[in-house]
């Protein structure tokens, strides 16, 4: 049952990314390109996704997930070096290709060789992250 709803959520996510245009790198780079032919679509996608998601978080309060278990704990308040450095690196890659992880996976069947190269490189980066994360956290510890 968990797997079925995970499949369903993944499928909906993918269709949403496709319809919204987020699997098209020109729309993503168009949003980031404030000095070029600026494309505001991404703001509508974000807004359209955040509203129902905020309602879901509100509904979750005081309840349990339908299939048991517990909801995720409250967000961690500390920011940290990993968050900032990681987001800057991610943003740079996102700008270079116009792909973030969701659309990169969703477009796997029609993304061609380039899409496959991106996915392989992304998996490589993910695989290499934990040692670096531990290292950065170590540096961060106050003396």
């Amino acid at each position, binding site marked *: 049952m968990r797997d079925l*709803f995970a499949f369903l959520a993944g*499928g909906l996510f993918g269709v949403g990314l496709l319809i919204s245009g987020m699997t098209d790198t020109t729309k993503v780079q168009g949003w980031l390109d404030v000095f070029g032919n600026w494309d505001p679509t*991404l703001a509508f996608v974000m807004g359209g996704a955040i509203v129902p998601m905020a309602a*879901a978080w509100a509904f979750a309060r005081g309840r349990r997930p339908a299939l048991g278990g517990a909801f995720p704990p409250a967000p961690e308040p500390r920011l940290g070096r990993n968050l900032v450095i990681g*987001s800057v690196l991610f943003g740079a890659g996102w700008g270079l290709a116009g792909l973030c992880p969701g659309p990169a996976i969703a477009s796997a069947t029609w993304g061609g060789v380039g899409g496959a190269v991106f996915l392989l490189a992304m998996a490589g980066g993910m695989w290499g992250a934990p040692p670096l994360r531990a290292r950065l956290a170590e540096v961060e510890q106050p003396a």
Partner: protein
Amino acid sequence: MPQDWLFGLVGGGIIGLAGSVYLLVNGRIMGASGIIGGLVDGSARETGRERAAFLAGLVLVPGLAVLLTGGADTHLTGNLAVVAAAGLLVGLGTRLANGCTSGHGVCGISRLSLRGIVATVFYILAGGLTVVFFRHLLGVI
């Protein structure tokens, strides 16, 4: 196209619905980089099958939709060196930051998570600067 914003809004709503299902039914945050990252670095353990099912839906359902509607194009640059560098940065960065556009952006901002908001500000700023630098100054992308 002039109605792109409408497709954006509707598609965004479907993304929000997907995140709501994953949260309210499975009790999990729908973050693409976290779901796949946990499988790649082996930290997933007992949630592996659920993650794999999510990814299967994410690949197969839009794949089928594109097959039936006659194709789509990611318009990804043909420069594979740029593509590989971008993929590496996206993989490394999202796992260091513990989230991407879906986890920090959609799921984080919607519950007013400070980390989600700060991450989103930084990756949009970095993305914007990258496009300006590599497109308008170097002309690489």
